[in-house]
């Protein structure tokens, strides 16, 4: 009696798989791509800033500023940046000291030049930043900006980030810069895991929580005011809330069962999360202080890792194990219109691109005992379900998270597969320019919304 039923089920699964196949063709990266630049990248030269004070600390600030500015513009992914070896050996401190013809000529061939001066006096660090259009000999100045902060190495870095963002905002085709954004992540320390914060470039790593337990899945609110995460307590994992304005934990109601993987709606008023308060883990939504919780899925098996469409807030992508191995799904944020996105393997950890068009996620396409598969980062175009693979042969990758300009993806990587060796890496959204932001012991990165 039970055998024909099982066989029938198996057959229908196979049929479904066969039917699905044409919709999931293997694709080369050329077939579709995440647009990093529109047209030819702008060739930009960055002069070393001119120190204009005798304070012995100035040279230290200048070094920090120069390297941060160069790294920010280089990492932006929209510039053809002139190598330091090809630029004129001069440090023009202001517009009158600028000889643009020198910068526009070979070998620099710069279309744009960023330059300026830096001084430390009376405990203040003052930076004047200029951006010139080298091809416009009559009115070359694009903008000039003055920054004044308390003199410190950290502020030298922050000013460089702000100046870089200003340049990217002017030249980046309308996109915002990300040099002032933050990345929240899990710091592994023995048995415990705490939530940490760092600048987008890996600098300024520091702890936010000190709960002495396992804290996971940090998710920053769209306005950068609150951080939702989940932490292990006596009653299992519960949603927790940390206020970045108050620098302390704030109350969030506990519920029965396991509650984890919170996600913010783009309006900041709603969160989605996984809860097993009624037995089976399902996707729930609630308002940002945890009240008016309601269940929006009902599938037997794990449902976890929701993420809102940041463009509309009207859809949720999440991971469901209702057919066995976890797969990527999307649905309307009221639970209707469920669509399966992946055709097999083991898919986890979705992140929705800021423009609403793509899902980044971790996928092991040949998952199973003894299978030779690896877990890598993929990006799928939602309307066509076509995908590209962004990481290859660098070990286990998980937890991709988009930068707010949609040009970068940060993710967790463990070269040898050992959990303790997990580190955070960043790359452009087309898979190029990979580099590590942290050493071992950092996991589950989440990029701020702005």
């Amino acid at each position: 009696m039970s055998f024909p039923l099982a066989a029938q089920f198996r057959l229908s699964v196979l049929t479904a798989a066969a039917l699905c196949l044409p919709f999931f063709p293997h694709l080369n990266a050329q077939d579709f791509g995440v647009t990093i630049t529109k047209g030819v990248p702008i060739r930009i030269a960055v002069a070393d800033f001119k120190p204009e004070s005798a304070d012995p600390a100035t040279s230290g600030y200048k070094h920090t500023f120069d390297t941060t500015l160069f790294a920010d513009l280089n990492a932006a992914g929209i510039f053809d940046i002139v190598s330091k070896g090809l630029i004129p050996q001069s440090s023009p401190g202001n517009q009158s000291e600028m000889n643009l013809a020198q910068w526009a000529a070979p070998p620099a061939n710069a279309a744009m030049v960023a330059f300026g001066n830096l001084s430390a006096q009376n405990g203040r660090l003052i930076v004047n930043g200029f951006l010139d259009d080298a091809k416009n000999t009559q009115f070359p100045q694009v903008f000039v900006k003055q920054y004044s902060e308390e003199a410190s190495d950290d502020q030298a870095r922050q000013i460089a980030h702000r100046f870089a963002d200003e340049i990217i905002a002017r030249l980046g085709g309308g996109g915002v810069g990300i040099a002032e954004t933050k990345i929240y992540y899990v710091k592994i320390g023995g048995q415990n895991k705490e939530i940490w914060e760092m600048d987008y470039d890996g600098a300024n790593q520091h702890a936010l929580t000190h709960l002495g337990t396992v804290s996971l899945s940090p998710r920053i609110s769209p306005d950068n005011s609150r951080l939702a995460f989940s932490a292990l307590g006596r009653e299992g994992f519960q949603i927790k809330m940390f206020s970045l304005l108050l620098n302390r934990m704030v109350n969030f109601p506990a519920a029965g069962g396991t509650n984890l993987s919170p996600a913010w709606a783009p309006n900041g008023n709603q969160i989605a999360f996984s809860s097993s308060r009624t037995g089976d883990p399902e996707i729930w939504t609630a308002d940002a202080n945890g009240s008016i919780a309601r269940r929006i899925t009902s599938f037997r098996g794990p449902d976890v890792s929701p993420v809102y469409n940041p463009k509309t807030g009207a859809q949720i992508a999440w991971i469901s194990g209702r057919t066995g191995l976890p797969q990527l799904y999307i649905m309307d944020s009221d639970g209707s219109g469920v669509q399966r996105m992946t055709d097999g393997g083991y898919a986890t950890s979705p992140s929705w691109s800021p423009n609403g068009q793509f899902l980044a996620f971790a996928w092991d396409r040949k998952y199973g005992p003894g299978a030779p598969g690896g877990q890598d980062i993929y990006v799928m175009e939602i309307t066509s379900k076509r995908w590209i693979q962004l990481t290859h042969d660098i070990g286990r990758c998980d937890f991709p998270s988009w930068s707010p300009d949609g040009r970068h993806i940060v993710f967790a990587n463990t070269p040898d597969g050992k959990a303790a060796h997990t580190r955070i890496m960043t790359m452009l959204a087309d898979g190029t320019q990979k580099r590590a932001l942290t050493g071992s012991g950092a996991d589950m990165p989440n990029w701020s919304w702005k």
Partner: protein
Amino acid sequence: MTLQSKPWKWALLAAALSLATGCHHSKPLNTTGANANETASSNLPAPTATLTADPLAIDIGQSLVLNWRTTNATSVVIDGIGPVPVNGTQTVSPSNSTNFHLVAKGDGGSTEANVRVTVRVPKPPSAADENANGSEDKTDEVTFHQNVKDVFFDYDSFDLRPDAQQAALSAARYLAAHPAIKVLIGGYCDDRGSAEYNITLGENRANAARTALISAGVPASRIRVVSYGKERQFCTEENETCWQENRRAQFNIDR
């Protein structure tokens, strides 16, 4: 305990059923031979009755379904339950082995049906009896883990294996004999796969073990469930032996 609450429940049930069957008696009997004697009257067929139980044997705390079918009967009574509809089913959870006895009466006479249900009552471990008053923590811990064994799961699965079902039954017997002990079930996963998904998978595993204990008669109020996913590993080697050790629902005394 649940078992002691059964008799009054049955009484209530019987009362409710007799109310429901009242209409049968008030129905006008327009047949001629109205003597419901043991001897059937000449032209009316005698009632027939069957009574079955599924399953025929249970462990204490479990339930079974009685199913009866009669023909030509106007009133049907099951001992211990009372008047019942002429055809029906009833879920019961007897605390002892019971002989269910059904009498069907009709205009053509009466007939009987029986079914014997065996209830397996475990003998409480004698060691526990000896130091029931002492209730030493250490002994509890040792006998607890001897009787309440962790259950293990297949890869990416939260379905109980047959061996786990057996383990749950013996765990339930032990817990029935030690009503003071509360249980913490931890759900665990192996090191592979993703952290968030594994926590929900661990939740499903712990809940599967919880459901097995509850259906074996352990009250839900004595069980607490926490999923640890892959956050608290038993071992960290990358091989099937270790992965299997980690894919488990682990039982502990909840203090």
